[in-house]
């Protein structure tokens, strides 16, 4: 039963799984970008570098502090989030009233600094990070072998995405956040500390990147370049989905991961480029993006 209509089902499901995992990372990063964009109206170019920082932080916690994966999973997003809060407060806020292109360039500069420092400290070849003991091994399913850690990535990132979506769309705090997106001046007039919300939002969005970094550490090798290559793909995803909706960013991220996985199976030469090609198609047919609100 491994062959069906000439398709090797083991290979196909294997690539689908890889696609779903990549999609989980795309979703987490796109979600972080969308949240930050909603309030600050900036594209955080350092999101990829902070994802890389998350992976390195997990590696360093194990190497230097003997803190295992589970501590890292909990602590690293907080540390990266605090780092992000400091960035927002001391670098991004002073130019909040300038053209948004400047904040984009600023975060690009921060990304260059982070990537350059880690390249110098740890080289560009990448460091291994072992899968935690509890998640080693796997489950045999009818058509494929499912490693436990990979299942964990999907479950964990989907749960975080769903939770974030619920928080933003259904809670009071989320309502503040959405109101701040619509009209920050009015919010301020109602006595709500908008700058504080902005800072916390940035910290949270960046923390998501940190979390993605920790999740990624055991499956991809921890390397300084891991952030920049994934970020450009995530940008294409954001263009495809539009940043108008939180749910849209998550769905597009997952869907593009699956599209990439399928391409890897059917036409591997195009697997690097397929998401960009989808972006071209979307630009031609629906320029505002699949979930986009603006014209």
């Amino acid at each position, binding site marked *: 039963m491994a062959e069906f209509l000439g398709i090797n089902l083991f290979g196909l499901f294997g690539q689908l799984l890889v696609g779903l995992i990549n999609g989980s990372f795309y979703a987490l990063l796109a979600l972080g970008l969308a949240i930050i*964009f909603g309030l600050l109206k*900036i*594209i955080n170019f350092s999101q990829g570098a902070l994802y890389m920082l998350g992976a390195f932080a997990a590696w360093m916690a194990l190497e230097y502090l003997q803190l295992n994966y589970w501590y890292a999973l909990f602590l690293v997003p907080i540390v990266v989030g605090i780092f992000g809060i400091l960035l927002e407060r001391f*670098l991004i806020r*002073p*130019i909040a009233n*300038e053209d*948004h*292109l*400047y*904040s*984009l*360039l*600023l975060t*690009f*500069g*921060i*990304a*260059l*600094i*982070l*990537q*350059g*420092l880690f*390249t*110098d400290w740890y080289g560009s070849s990448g460091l291994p990070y072992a899968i935690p003991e509890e998640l080693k091994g796997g489950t045999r399913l009818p058509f494929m072998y499912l490693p436990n850690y990979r299942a964990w990535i999907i479950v964990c990132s989907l749960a975080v995405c769903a939770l974030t979506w619920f928080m933003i769309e259904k809670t009071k705090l989320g309502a503040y956040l959405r109101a701040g997106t619509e009209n920050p001046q009015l919010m301020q007039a109602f006595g709500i500390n908008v700058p504080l919300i902005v800072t916390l939002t940035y910290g949270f969005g960046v923390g998501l990147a940190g979390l993605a970094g920790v999740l990624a550490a055991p499956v991809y090798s921890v390397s300084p370049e891991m952030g*920049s290559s994934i970020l*450009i*793909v995530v*940008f*294409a995803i*954001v*263009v495809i989905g539009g940043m108008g909706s939180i749910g849209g960013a998550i769905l597009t991220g997952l869907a593009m991961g699956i599209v990439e996985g399928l391409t890897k199976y059917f036409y591997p*030469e195009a697997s*690097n*480029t397929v998401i*960009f*090609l989808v*972006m*071209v198609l979307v*630009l*031609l047919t629906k*320029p505002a993006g699949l979930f986009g609100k603006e014209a």
Partner: protein
Amino acid sequence: MNNKTLNFSILALALAAPLVLYPVFLMKVLCFALFACAFNLLLGFVGLLSFGHAIFLGSGAYITGHLMLNYSITPEVGILAGVGASALIGLIYGKLAVKREGIYFAMVTLALAQLMFFFYLQAPFTGGEDGLQGVPRGFLFGLIDLSDNLTMYYFVLAIFIAGFLLIYRTIHSPFGQVLKAIRENEARAISLGYKVNNYKLQAFVISAALAGLAGSTKALVFQLASLNDVHWFMSGEVVLMTLLGGMGTIWGPVLGAGTIVGLQNFLASGPLANYIHVVMGVVFVVCVLAFRQGLVGELQKLVRKNF
């Protein structure tokens, strides 16, 4: 000192420069200066931040390099082919990119550039990770041997001046005025009946073609076309050159390119060689936080205040 004397003194300096400085270094500065000027036409005068401009530089370099290596053509034909290829890619990419604005424009151009990057990485004619090495400089018009660095320098200088004048004329033409109007107030330009997207597209193609010219020339100077030329880092570098020199000024990108290339050369031989990217990042952050007018902008402010 009026503008004319200023321009002539700069020209005289450029002509005499190889007496003092290494010609290859000067040619590198000129190539990047032309690249940055082309980029500045979009960012500084239309307000469009293209984050994938390296692809036009690199396409020019690859096409010229490939033709010079495999066919017996003269360098001016090779350069024209490179410029044509970049202009064509610019036309296609421009058509797609002008559909979105602001931050989305930056992301679209970056993503499209990455698409092309993977194409060049996988295409057989680019030599993959090794790039195209040993590109011959050839004989200009079949007559003048360009293998001598000094001859090559004056050829590059002539190309730079031609490109620079073209940009200068574009900016100061009625067409350029419309571009500036779009930068200042796009909605107003639309309501005045200008087909804004057409203007943006035309500016995009001119900019792409001139970036290709810079790339083709660079391929001949260094006799090399490589993935570095099409990498996103190169796109970031040209943004930095323009920002540092002063976006929206005529001479800013030239000064910015000179400063960055000089800085890189200086760093490469010193103890900070491994930190070039970090230093670039720091310059980026400092420019954005404290220095948004760039070198030329600050200089103009200084002159206005004191003279």
